[in-house]
């Protein structure tokens, strides 16, 4: 039985006003931005760097909104509660994941930013090419990024479509609206558009979520009653535990692999590289966890939906249905606009990150024209639209899972490459090929599940496939590095490298 509630005109009106206002503000960012900052735009940036990295001048606040805006996507608002709705406490792995990612950012990203600034790099693949001097490795990293981010953009389009469908429109129209608004917004505004409208997105999401976490428990008689009644709808767990024994390892390893993968994606890395200084990033590692609180509250919406008696077969409709059930319709419209704008901001950053990859790394000649970047960004969005139209939504979600496995294979080149260990490019390429193939193969054999059962020395558990593939990748890389070093012996070139490392 579906408890579907249809909204009235008030909801649609509020949604259209909020959504259109944000798109207009973002698209015309070139016209009104000079009024905000009295400083003249720095002249030494090329127009391409201005469009693709915002001129590398975002301070602590803008970075906070930009990274928070594109890391916590609209898909998060829809998918995390959906997972909690269907699996209970297990869906909460998003919380440890988005906490442990910050110590990781603090330790790694300032170094990466410094390298990128000194070398004038805009993408992960740029950094890798400069460090290892290998065009093949650059292509490998760039292709991984592109393949991983495409289904992610598709999911944002699905996020916008979900709320437009919840407003009562059906057919291809919602998708078309989502696509056209995204295209106009990114084409005209560049990275400045999401950076400045991320502020609007955050305020709207905060209002929606805070209203939900205050109003719903009042309806249901407090959080204790909420947890209690939600527990009755979920599978039983023995003696006071929340997770059953078999879910403990998947919970921990999924959190870890997601945290490692999160900031390898082109869109999150673009947000980081656009910061003004390394200290801006450190400062953000301290203050960005504020978003994680909101994410945790959003995850609770999944339990609240159970307690509020929402029954739906399509789990992505859990949050829209909950909003329609508990809020007056004009406020539900506002919340939907928040989700739609929340999809626009990250999708735009993703398209820009992917366009940077295409223009800088995949095309053979280094082209530096904004129109080219815009066209590449547009092409990426058309690709994402194709993902939505020709593959069904279920497949887009699976593809995004595979994307996580793929992007994790760039970890050795990008992050381990920061350590003072000289890894030869050939070893990294071999590791990348082995990790990607085995990771994708395992995913395929398991029927597109994120975890793979492992049995080792009388101990068996399910481990995140991405982490498993990364382990294989690292093992192959280090073995190859050793083999290459042994084969070359004490040739002058290796000796020089070693001396360089010791210094």
């Amino acid at each position, binding site marked *: 039985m579906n408890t579907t509630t249809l909204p009235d005109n008030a909801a649609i009106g509020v949604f259209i006003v909020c959504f259109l206002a944000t798109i207009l503000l973002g698209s015309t960012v070139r016209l009104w931005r000079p009024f905000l900052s009295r400083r003249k735009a720095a002249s030494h940036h090329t127009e391409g760097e201005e469009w693709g990295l915002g001129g590398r001048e975002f301070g602590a606040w803008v970075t906070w909104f930009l990274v928070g805006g594109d890391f916590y996507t609209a898909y998060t608002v829809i998918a995390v509660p959906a997972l909690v709705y269907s699996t209970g406490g297990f869906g909460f792995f998003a919380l*440890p994941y988005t906490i442990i990612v910050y*110590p990781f950012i603090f330790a790694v990203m300032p170094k990466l930013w410094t390298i990128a600034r000194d070398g004038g790099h805009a993408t992960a693949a740029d950094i890798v090419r400069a460090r290892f001097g290998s065009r093949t490795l650059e292509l490998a990293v760039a292709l991984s990024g592109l393949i991983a981010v495409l289904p992610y953009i598709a999911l944002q389009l699905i996020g916008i479509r979900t709320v437009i469908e919840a407003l009562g429109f059906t057919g291809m129209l919602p998708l078309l609206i989502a696509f056209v608004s995204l295209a106009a917004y990114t084409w005209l505004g560049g990275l400045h558009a999401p950076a400045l409208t991320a502020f609007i997105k955050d305020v709207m999401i905060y209002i929606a979520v805070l209203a939900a976490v205050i109003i719903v428990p009042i309806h249901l008689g407090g959080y204790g009653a909420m947890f209690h009644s939600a527990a009755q709808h979920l599978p039983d767990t023995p003696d006071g*535990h929340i997770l059953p024994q078999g879910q403990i390892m998947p919970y921990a390893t999924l959190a870890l692999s997601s945290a490692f993968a999160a900031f390898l994606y082109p869109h999150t890395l673009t947000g980081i590289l656009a910061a003004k200084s390394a200290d801006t990033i450190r400062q953000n590692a301290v203050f960005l966890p504020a978003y994680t609180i909101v994410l945790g509250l959003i995850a609770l919406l999944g339990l609240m939906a159970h307690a509020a008696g929402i029954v739906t077969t399509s789990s992505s409709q859990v949050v829209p249905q909950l909003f329609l059930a508990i809020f007056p319709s004009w406020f539900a419209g506002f919340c939907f606009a928040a989700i739609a704008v929340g999809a626009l901001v990250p999708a735009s950053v993703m398209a820009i990150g992917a366009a940077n990859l295409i223009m800088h790394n995949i095309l053979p000649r280094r082209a530096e024209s904004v129109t080219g970047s815009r066209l590449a960004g547009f092409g990426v969005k058309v690709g994402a639209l194709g993902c939505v139209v020709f593959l069904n939504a279920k497949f887009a979600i699976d593809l995004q899972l595979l994307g996580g496995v793929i992007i994790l294979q760039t970890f050795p080149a990008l992050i381990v490459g920061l350590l003072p260990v000289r890894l030869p490019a050939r070893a990294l390429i071999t590791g990348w090929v082995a990790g990607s193939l085995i990771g994708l193969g395992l995913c395929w054999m398991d029927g597109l599940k994120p975890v793979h059962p492992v049995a080792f020395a009388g101990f068996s558990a399910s481990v995140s496939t991405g982490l498993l593939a990364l382990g294989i990748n690292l093992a192959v890389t280090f073995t190859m590095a050793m083999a290459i070093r042994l084969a070359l012996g004490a040739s002058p070139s290796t000796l020089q490298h070693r001396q360089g490392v010791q210094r």
Partner: protein
Amino acid sequence: MLIENHEDQTRCFLQRMADCVIYFIEVIYFIYVIFTTAKGGIHLEINCAMQQNHCALHNSLNEITELFFHSGIKYFTFTSIMLTRGRTFQKHSTRPHQKNKKYGHMKKALLLLLPFAGLLWVPLYNHSNPVLFGFPFFYWYQFAWVPVTSVLIWAAWKTERQS
């Protein structure tokens, strides 16, 4: 009668809150001690003592015990925390000066690894008691790690600037 009852409830509630906070500090400190033990190979006996305290306190939280007994255990725990803490710092402060930079690095790494240990070791928090504001332990423990992580990163940043 009614007011008394209300007062009683408030006291009960406050006590419960205090228990939860202390329990959380206990868990974090427990992880910290294990880390330092693993690192330096010292304080093994303290580690064992901490573990026993930890279990004792945990059990005592699950049943309703008398206030005095409770505060006795709390006092004991806190004393042991203060004692080990004092010893740890003493140990560190007597290190040679030239090792300070290396120590700074170790401290930074330790601060940044604590959230990993506290959150990826799931059996540590995979239970529903003690409940706080209606939130089962599983949920509020993870929420509580958010501000703690912020503070730890900030501390690591400060350490980095000093060294």
